[in-house]
């Protein structure tokens, strides 16, 4: 390239870079705006001009949310159900992924097709029948009732199978020679070799479960049994709208997952890329 042409491309490149960075800031701005508004006094948030920083930063809306609403119970319900979904999904998927990847048994193909089929069935269409089922089991308004229908995550199995397929056969053969049991091979070789995947899948399954809306919304009618994701939208003040207060409870609802993402950024992006069938 001629020097002039190179300079032209560099300037164009720099402009694109600057635009990207500015766009990123604008993109995330509504999140910042929601957070900063939650630290303002109610009469400050409704001022007719823009204040990027609260004049009198206050924690009173958080204090209100934590003491005067049922947010504490909602938190507990969210933690319990999201952990339940994560542990059950990851453990059962791991076992199935291992069986399909490493063992030959009658029905293996049928099982694989069932998993692929469940990939295509939108769980949203099953809400009526899930509701009837859970109601008949007497599990409405319980943690178990919230957890059960959320255990359809075929993608976790598919990722496990892929990773188990890639473990070199020599490890398995050596272990068989040593008379290791199948359980021993799984717990001493396959699981430890794939801790990274397990961590990544657990974090995103937790995030998915924490963020679940439709089913937890249907499965619970009593306010004290709601998850926080549902609770903050279902209970409102009897008199007037308190914007800062609403935003404070929204911040509390989003905080755990945002924190999980910021702490485990690489794992989260890896798991999400894997879940779409792309090697991260």
């Amino acid at each position, binding site marked *: 390239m001629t020097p002039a042409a190179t300079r032209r491309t560099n300037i164009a490149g720099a402009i694109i870079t600057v635009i990207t960075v500015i766009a990123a800031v604008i993109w*995330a701005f509504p999140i910042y705006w929601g957070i900063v508004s939650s630290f303002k006094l109610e009469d400050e948030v409704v001022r007719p001009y*823009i204040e990027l920083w609260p004049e009198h930063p206050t924690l009173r809306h958080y204090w209100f949310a934590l003491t005067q609403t049922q947010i504490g119970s909602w938190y507990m319900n969210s933690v319990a159900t999201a952990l339940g979904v994560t542990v059950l999904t990851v453990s059962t*998927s791991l076992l199935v992924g291992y*069986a399909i990847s490493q063992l030959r048994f009658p029905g293996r193909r049928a099982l694989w097709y069932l998993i692929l089929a469940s990939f295509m069935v939108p769980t949203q269409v*099953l809400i009526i029948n899930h509701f009837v089922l859970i109601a008949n089991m007497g599990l409405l308004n319980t943690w178990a009732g919230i957890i059960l*229908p959320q255990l359809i995550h075929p993608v976790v199995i598919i990722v496990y199978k892929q990773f188990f397929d890639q473990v070199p056969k020599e490890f398995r053969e050596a272990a068989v020679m040593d008379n290791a049991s199948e359980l021993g091979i799984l717990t001493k070789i396959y699981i430890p070799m794939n801790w990274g995947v397990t961590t990544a899948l657990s974090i995103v399954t937790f995030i998915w479960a924490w963020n679940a809306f439709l089913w937890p919304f249907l499965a619970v009618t009593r306010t004290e049994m709601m998850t926080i994701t549902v609770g903050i939208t279902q209970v409102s003040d009897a008199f007037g709208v308190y914007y800062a207060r609403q935003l404070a409870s929204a911040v509390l609802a989003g905080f755990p997952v945002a924190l999980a993402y910021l702490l485990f950024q690489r794992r989260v992006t890896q798991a999400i890329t894997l879940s779409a069938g792309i090697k991260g």
Partner: protein
Amino acid sequence: MIRNARKDTLIAYVLIAPFVAIYGLIFVYPTIDMFILSFQDAPLITFGPQTAEWTGLDNYTRLPGDRRFDTAFWNTAYFVLLSVVPGTLVALAISLGITRLSGRLQSLVLALFFLPYILPVSVVYRIWDWTLNFQFGIAMHLFDTLGIDRVPIFKTSTWFMPAVAFVTIWWTCGFSILLFLAGLRAIPAEIYEAAELDNAGRWTVFRKLTWPLLWPVTALVLTIQLILQLKIFDQVYLFSIGGRPNDNLVMVYYIYQRAFQNDDGGRAAAIAVVLFLMVIVVSVLNFQLLRLAERKT
């Protein structure tokens, strides 16, 4: 050897037992039950076999004349139109910008774009309900500056779907961006170096190299988005609070309304079956198209 195979089978069955039990209960059984229910007149709250009556195809034949079904179907189609292709293009543009950056700046910019995806829908709802608030929303200052008349966005039928599509793109774009970035990373640097030697311009490089090489990922993103947006409910429901749900119906919302507000399990199930078939047809078609695209390249 035979004993070994039998032992293998036994172990396999033990390993898959918990999964099969769970899937039988919450996937296989409800799916079959959905079809059965769709041929019945069955109230949902007072369930039980004694109240369900077989009505043949009645629940289906009533759909074409059902105005709310009509609204739900076309709103869903409209929403897909507003969100799938635009969302994919936005994600592609952002990824092309991010991929030029490096090091800490790149991870920071990616995090800013990706953060919304990680948030629960109700938080996204609160943020945008506040940002676009008719009286006090910061976006309305922008409207005032630009000389656009303020509108109560989520209370106006013309604005509702485009606004929800906009928020949805903002919310879910991070996912598509990740896929595009993975796709861009997979393109070997030598190809670009060769293009540079040929003095190819930025646009030519994109059109002749990046776009075709990225096409499989683009097709994947489009597929995932399409299937995802057909199933939209949460945002529409939340933004309709205090508004006009009946104008904003989408397929899943109508299932919810029929089943849980009109206590009409049978007709709700028929709508569910229709959506189910729509998703299956789209998935299968897409899958075949993807396979064809792969064979070509």
